[in-house]
């Protein structure tokens, strides 16, 4: 087919003015993912027994879990949105992404300094393994939902976009996991949660070129 014919064809259908749907689509997909992750956490993993007790607010490590995981989600959202728009520069947003991880590392080091040995859960090995596969498991539906949404936009760097979708999904999975996880130790959150989220990001990066390819 001749390019001029193609142009004549397409010319019959001038576009409507775009109304910035990228932010809306990514936010909606993230919200849907969060709902699925929370439901899975409640129905499958079961919430920690003291979750309903109002005293949970006094549990600083529980609050830290929520703040950390939610800020990973909040930091990844704008990057995923920007990566879905061709030609958009990312710049500062990807630096923001590092902040939650850097802050939790500072807290872990501080705790190590105070206690010399971290107050490691007694059955720490078991908790570690559980965290390392259950967060990605909660994140898996989120990864799929986000990939379907982002494919409808136009990501041009599929590996990188996949990695950030993985970070976002990992953060969402970790929010869900926090409702269940009863190992209240800063060192545990800083290491096991971080690793599980990065694990999901790696899966996202590896699957990105297949999951996100659009034509």
């Amino acid at each position, binding site marked *: *087919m001749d*390019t*001029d014919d*193609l*142009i*004549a064809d*397409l*010319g*019959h*259908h*001038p*576009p*409507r*003015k*775009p109304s*910035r*749907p*990228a932010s809306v689509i990514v936010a909606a997909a993230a919200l849907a993912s969060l709902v699925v992750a929370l439901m899975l956490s409640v129905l499958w993993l079961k919430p920690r027994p003291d979750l309903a007790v109002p005293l949970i607010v006094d549990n600083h490590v529980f609050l830290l879990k929520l703040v950390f995981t939610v800020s990973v989600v909040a930091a990844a959202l704008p990057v995923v949105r920007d990566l*879905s*728009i*061709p*030609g*958009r520069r990312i710049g500062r947003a990807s630096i923001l992404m590092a902040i939650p991880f850097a802050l939790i590392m500072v807290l872990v080091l501080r705790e190590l300094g105070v206690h010399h040995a971290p107050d490691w859960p007694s059955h720490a090995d078991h908790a570690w393994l559980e965290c390392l596969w259950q967060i990605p498991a909660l994140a898996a539906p989120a990864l799929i939902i986000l990939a379907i949404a982002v494919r409808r*936009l*136009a990501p*041009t760097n599929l590996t990188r976009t996949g990695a950030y979708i993985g970070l976002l999904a990992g953060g969402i999975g970790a929010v869900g996991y926090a409702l269940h996880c009863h190992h209240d130790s800063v060192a545990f959150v800083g290491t096991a949660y971080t690793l599980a989220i990065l694990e999901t990001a790696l899966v996202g990066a590896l699957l990105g070129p297949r999951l996100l*390819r659009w*034509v």
Partner: protein
Amino acid sequence: MTNSEHKLNVLLQRSFDGDHAAYREFLKLLSEILRAYLRRQLFRVGRAEHDAEDLVQEALLAIHARWHTFERDVPVTAWARAIARYKLIDFLRKSTNGARNLSLDDIEETAVTDGTAIDDALSVVKLVAVLPEKLRRSLKLVRLNGLSTKEAAAATGMSEAAIKVNVHRGVKAIARELKK
């Protein structure tokens, strides 16, 4: 480029208002920009430039189908070129059978074996001519005359390692020259 950016923006505004002729003109102007861009990129990786026309059409179709991802704070040429680049990479990936990272050597190799066009070879001769004497001699003997590194070393009195380094630098210098 800023000039065409401005023109494209005016046409685009009119297209958004439903002006068919403006949208056609927009696509026409954009296709010229994309064609030049894609040709340049294809030449750099040693591909036949006639693939460019297919890619221009693919890019136009993708652009037409993805207007919902256009945001005003991204220049329309940057937006369209990012889509064209995505299509180009996708095409190269499919057609080079998994060769994801084309290194300089691969690029050189394909450029020679592909037999792209005599014109390309001639322009390479011209490009080689502007290189510094040492690089030029090594590159000419090995890549244009087809001598082995060993033979070239014997012919020039340089070491094999020096020949290799010179050839590598020469290829890089040419790549730089082409980018200009």
